[in-house]
């Protein structure tokens, strides 16, 4: 599988995410934000602080030349995964519905957090069981997901709500104030995925967990 890893000025999880995808057998190529997008099986927008998160997370990156190409690629059905800042950029680019605000605590939060798989009828979470509880690190200051009620209902109906924050027993535990404790979503067509947690940081036992592997492996089909 060929993965294109988009790098904006200020992206800082590009090398990590490349390492993680290579660990599960993908070929990964970096795409600088002014480069053309080649033919890939998956385009990943990794985490970090594109443009320093100045103005608002992802708000400037959305105007990067490469984003026009990512949009076209997604509209043609190409698969896109946005992690953390990548998710924020997908929201700002309107490739995914909703928006992010500051965490309720107003602090950056970095820790392992449990997630519940709400829907696995999509490629990204196809290797996970519905209701399965995963343990994946989060690291963000703006992860408080917001969306209007009508859209939210539509998203539930379409199976677009993918992951929710929870405790180790699956009970709701909301670290940042997200509506319905939502941690990850996809678009209606189920080819654009976004999540705040970092699966690339849960790839071996040294790091404290391996639950990220099955997430990334979902794309290998």
């Amino acid at each position, binding site marked *: 599988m060929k993965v294109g890893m988009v790098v904006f*000025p*200020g992206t*800082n*999880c590009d*090398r*990590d995410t490349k*390492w*993680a995808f290579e660990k599960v057998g993908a070929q990964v190529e970096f795409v*600088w934000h002014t480069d053309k997008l080649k033919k890939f099986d998956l385009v990943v927008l990794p*985490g*970090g*602080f594109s*443009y*320093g*998160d*100045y103005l608002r997370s992802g708000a400037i990156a959305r105007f990067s030349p490469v984003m026009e190409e990512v949009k076209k690629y997604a509209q043609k059905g190409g698969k896109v995964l946005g992690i953390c800042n990548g998710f924020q950029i997908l929201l700002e680019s309107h490739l995914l519905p909703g928006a992010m605000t500051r965490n309720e605590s107003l*602090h*950056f*939060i*970095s*820790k392992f957090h449990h997630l519940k798989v709400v829907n696995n009828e999509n490629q990204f979470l196809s290797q996970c069981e519905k209701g399965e509880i995963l343990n994946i*690190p989060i*690291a963000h*200051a703006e992860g408080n997901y917001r969306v209007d009620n009508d859209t939210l209902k539509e998203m539930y109906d379409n199976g677009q709500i993918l992951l929710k924050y929870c405790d180790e027993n699956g009970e709701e535990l909301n670290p940042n104030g997200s509506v319905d404790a939502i941690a990850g979503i996809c678009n209606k067509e189920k080819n654009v995925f976004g999540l705040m947690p*970092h699966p*690339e*940081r849960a*790839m071996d036992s*040294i*790091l404290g967990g391996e639950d990220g592997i099955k997430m990334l492996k979902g794309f290998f089909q």
Partner: protein
Amino acid sequence: MGYMELDKSRLEEILAKHKLTKADYEHIVQILGREPNLVELGIFSAMWSEHCSYKSSKIYLKGFPTEAPWVVQGPGENAGVIDIGDGMVAVFKMESHNHPSFIEPYQGAATGVGGILRDVFTMGARPVLNLNAIRFADIRGESPKAKLHRHLLSGVVAGIAGYGNCVGVPTIGGETAFEECYKGNILVNAFSLGICRKDEVFYARAEGVGNPVIYVGSKTGRDGLGGAVMSSDSFKEEDEDQRPTVQVGDPFTEKLLMEACLELFKTDYIVGIQDMGAAGLTSSSFEMAGKSGSGLKLYLDKVPMREEGMNPYELMLSESQERMLICAKKGYEDKVIEIFKKYELDAEVIGEVTDSGRVELFWYGEKVADIPVAPITEEAPELCRPVMEPSYLKEIKEVEIPKADPQETFEKLIREPEVVDKSWIYTQYDSMVQTNTADSGRVDGSVIRVKENGKFIGVSTDCNARFCYIDPKKGAVASVLEAGRNVAVKGIEPKAITDCLNFGNPERPEIMWQFKEACEGIKEACQEMTTPVVSGNVSLYNENEGEGVYPTPEIGMVGVGDKWRSSYLKKEGNLVYLLGETKPEFGGSLYLKVIGGKVAGVHPEIDYEKERKLWKILQSDLIESAKDVGVGGIAIALYKWGSVSNKGLSLQVEGLSQPIDIFSESLHRALVEVDPKNREEFEKLLEESGIKWQLVGRVGGDRLEVNGVGIDLQEGRKIYFETFPQLMSSEIL
């Protein structure tokens, strides 16, 4: 040389502003063979400031042990370098940003992180971990002081997070301490460690006549103007108006600058590179020329400027952040500039290397300064300031240790801000970016793995300032030993240190004596433990209204190993051993501070042989987990260990002289967990080593206790994890 002529009628005032003496001025005149102009005076002032010249401290730093087979580069470069095997090296240093952080906590701490990161990546290494040692006054209560210090702590933590998280370097540990002596002068010490190939280390050099000197990074503004001079000053009441001397950080630019530099280092376009840190363009240009014995011509009008109307004086002394000076190979200018343009950074050729041995500065064609390089560094004032043993030391030696009820004591100590979990702080730091963090320092040291060679690097920052107050020499020794032990408990062998020496006003003989003693302690301990000093930083004038901070020689220990172990208790039923000897030693202890209200007494005994044996045993694979016994003694060690592991511990320690010895802070001790199946083998190892040991219990149960003193496990955990967030939710300012 008509530009910026000195107004001789105001000479005294001008010298005072530049913190130069009349003797310094005469020395400058002698070096130049004429009177300096204002630009030149500014340059001398910066280069001879305490911050850049180490004029008060140099004579004591000279005898530091700096060599071992694994040391690649000792002090003198931007950071120290040690070999970590398979052609890889670790590059590390620690630096203070105390004064700026007290004035403006967010930017002060943030730029502290930025500065130490540049020290590391200037050497060619990608920074892979940060630590921070921060110290405040007591943050409890509703006094204006407590509120101020909660505000300072919040700001410092946010600043460290804001900068480090954005650049993408994990902050994986550090230390937080509280003493009233920091009420007018907090301490913020930032540590960074990077990794690179041994044959790809870069040094600060500018040589090869005609080679271009290139300025890269942020534009120069008026921020931080004269910061190096400022930081060599004690705080006074009116210093609120020093705000403009605090630099403002831009971590986004730093990230771009770092990536551009790391990309540049993969080429062979450059001769050398130097960060523009304290004293900005002045120190970077003189250091680069000085190290190569060459000269430089710089055309200051070519420097990218943030605002109009700046003059050569300001350009040479500005401490704008995120800037570097590069000496490129002639003919490669365009290629170098191309890399920086990719990252949308300024890059301008601003000068060239000469063989004149002088730094010559030009401003639109006019020469505005001409200073010989060698004398400004070699003839920098080196002071032998008077030293005198402080009188307080005699007064505090004799102290009666109150005999409090152990259970009541335990319940007090487990609530101390110094003791309880600081995840309120740590969770604001991205500790996992770069996917190498094995252990982010919930207790004792921290560990990362190195993907390039499969090794593990253990790190810890420590200083027991109470010990240093009652005995600066032994306290410094204890700090080195504690930092090493905190790495050793992770199953990793301590290898070398960096230090950050935070002291009061060196013009006071008592402070200079403390400094001298602490240096002696570091020398002795590093020699004895074979952990040389490879880099470091001195921060003086940490005082407020005549009151010095406790001597605080912060130690950053780095260890390397093929394996590591976490500090979490592994299994119920495993055996727990206490290694080392517990004596009734309460000098400088938490017990005496909290129960007796004093920082006093006699320092615990030091025995290097015992510490060496302990470090060796801690490397054993028979150990499942280990915990340093330090502040608060056995009782606090087991409280922390059980709380973070969520496992009970009911220990019985024999041979204590009195019940309160469970809080004694005797050195050279650790608690270790061993699987019963390894009992025989482990006890044989202990016997052979000759250290004192006893089996004190097993993992399990629902209590955290020693000799019947303790607390229910879950109640203890609640106090351990919830005390600090509650404190910080109180009102600030």
